[in-house]
């Protein structure tokens, strides 16, 4: 029985969760002696209020789009990939290796090569936990957590011992060449006039939008996508239908890892233009919040990614304008994960009752609801 109309399930539940998360964050802001309304105003101004703000908001949103899609694809196969952080770290390594050691004549070819590098390295880092889950039954959550730490250690080792330029103290690679600089929004025709030169949002945003569409296509319009969703809904039924669990877990996780790895195109190739130690900055984890908030649907993930891009940029402005550390964003992120993910039933149950009551009272013969 459908307890709630589809629109309520897709929009109302996440919206209510979001409102609760913001209300509690407001209480936190009030508790540390600041004005929540003023804080919100500064965040909206800082995240959406100017061309400069949008240039950063969309840059962050691009990161979260990739990591959010990564978590979503794995979720559809009932795999909880917490390893986006590590996979994106490895993706950065792939990008750096491709861009540092081959003299690319033009950014377009370099972009294609770097995307292959990023996706391949990200997928590789997801492949080991996926194989361990599929063949040895090791819990994917635990293994991906461990792989996040190992990725950090590996990158640290490579940067300090091998990849940083001789004589440099900073654990980061040399800058990539000027030829492989990705065009920012300012450089693009049509949209360029609306953006300023100093913001990092770049062409990768459109690749992320394309990825969004492709993930939708994959999940709802291909045979593999159907198998992934069927496996995620019921492993037993999927096996009975002749779907191989090993194949689905591996493919879903490889796609997931590749998507997380692609984040590095935006951050490492587009933003920092060199590989730095902590390039991912928690975007892999924010992907979890984005996926939950977006109900694992690419369109929802897009909206949620922009929301978190706004929070990230607005939060940074907030820490400059008021005496509120940007960790406020971490709190909001935590509350969003809590209410849309773990306390979902708490938000949902009263709504379901309300709809059931409305149906009984309003519709003739107990029918109704789309």
């Amino acid at each position, binding site marked *: 029985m459908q307890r709630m109309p589809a629109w309520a399930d897709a929009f109302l539940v996440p919206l209510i969760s979001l409102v609760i998360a913001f209300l509690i964050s407001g209480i936190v802001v009030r508790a540390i002696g600041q004005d929540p309304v003023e804080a919100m105003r500064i965040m909206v101004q800082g995240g959406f209020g100017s061309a400069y703000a949008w240039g950063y908001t969309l840059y962050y949103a691009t990161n979260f789009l990739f990591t959010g899609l990564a978590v979503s694809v794995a979720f559809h196969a009932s795999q909880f990939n917490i390893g986006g952080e590590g996979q994106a770290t490895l993706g950065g390594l792939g990008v750096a290796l491709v861009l540092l050691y081959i003299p690319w004549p033009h950014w377009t070819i370099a972009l294609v090569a770097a995307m292959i590098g990023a996706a391949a390295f990200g997928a590789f880092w997801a492949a080991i936990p996926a194989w361990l889950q599929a063949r040895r039954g090791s819990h994917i959550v635990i293994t991906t957590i461990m792989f996040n730490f190992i990725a950090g250690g590996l990158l640290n080792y490579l940067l300090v011992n091998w990849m940083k330029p001789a004589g440099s103290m900073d654990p980061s690679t040399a800058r990539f060449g000027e030829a492989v600089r990705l065009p920012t929004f300012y450089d693009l025709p049509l949209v360029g006039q609306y953006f300023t030169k100093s913001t990092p949002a770049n062409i990768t945003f459109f690749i992320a939008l394309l990825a969004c569409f492709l993930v939708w296509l994959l999940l709802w319009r291909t045979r593999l996508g159907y198998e992934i969703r069927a496996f995620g809904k019921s492993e037993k039924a999927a096996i009975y239908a002749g779907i191989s669990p090993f194949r689905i877990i591996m493919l879903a996780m490889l796609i997931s890892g590749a998507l997380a790895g692609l984040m590095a195109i935006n951050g490492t190739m587009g933003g920092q233009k060199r590989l730095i130690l902590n390039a991912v900055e928690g975007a892999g984890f924010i992907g979890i919040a984005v996926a939950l908030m977006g109900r694992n649907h690419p369109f929802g993930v897009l909206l949620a990614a922009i929301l978190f891009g706004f929070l990230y940029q607005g939060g940074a402005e907030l820490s400059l304008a008021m005496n509120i550390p940007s960790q406020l964003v*971490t709190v909001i992120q935590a509350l969003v994960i*809590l209410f849309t993910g773990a306390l979902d039933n708490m938000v949902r149950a009263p709504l379901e009752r309300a709809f059931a009551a409305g149906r009984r009272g309003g519709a003739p013969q107990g029918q109704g609801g789309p």
Partner: protein
Amino acid sequence: MDFATLIEILGSTVRLSTPLLLACLAGLYSEKSGVFDIGLEGKMLMAAMVSGAVAFVTGSVWLGLLAGIAGSMALAALHGLASITFRGNQLISGVAINFLAAGLTVLVAEDLFGQGGRTPPVSFGAGRFAPIILPFADQIRPVPVIGPIYADLLSGHSILVYVAFAAVPATSWLLFRTRFGLRLRGVGENPAAVDTAGISVVRLRYTAVAITGLLCGLAGAYMAIGLSAGFGRDMTAGRGYIALAALIFAKWRPWYCMWACLLFGGLEAIANRYQNIDIGAFTVPVQLTANLPYILTIIILAGFVGRAIPPRAGGEPYVKER
């Protein structure tokens, strides 16, 4: 390496193992009852901040410790609410708790003290656990071998270190020799059977989660007002996850938890003392030593060296039949 250095590293191992051991045992109670907990890190962090702040303000270690435990248990209650009462996803709840703690600790500490998310330093006798010198430590020290072991390795730690190591036999006894322990393990393996026997699954799981909160509280408080002199931003630095790794490494058995935590604590002590270790043919980079706990856990999880099998009902909310 001479004997004195060895004793020094082992002493440091004992101190660094303590927060791991407390958090590891904390995770053991929760997971044995069928509630996955990847929020150990967050609970430790919260306890560290609260205990650091209260110990500084009141100047009392004990009030600091109690407040730290309360902070950790509040998050444990939230985890219980999400995963037991509302039957939510326990892993997602744990992730949320880790972020909640990472954000709130800095916000609150910054608001209270304005020192970039740190709490002000506390000193021995005024908010920090002083080392306990065991009797006759100074008299025995000159005795070769046994002297330094007694005086410098066993003696001279804060009380929470001894509590942590005493918690190992206590946990082993509680889980495997008492009725409570039998029931606790029962809800982790087959909650329906325990329910049929007329015992409340919900209450047992809440009890287990509360014990987890208590032990994480001890672990966090030890970090802030035992091992260090105050809370620092993100001071647990992944120890909650290493404790989780140790729990798997130990295959959910108390005594093995202790050995696993000593091993991982030892690796940390070595990584702190030596940067890159030169062993003739090649150099072991410090990043490898620091990440060995994770790598070893992956190998154990892969089942190449004996299989790690978690409690069967772990991660599944219990729905009573009607």
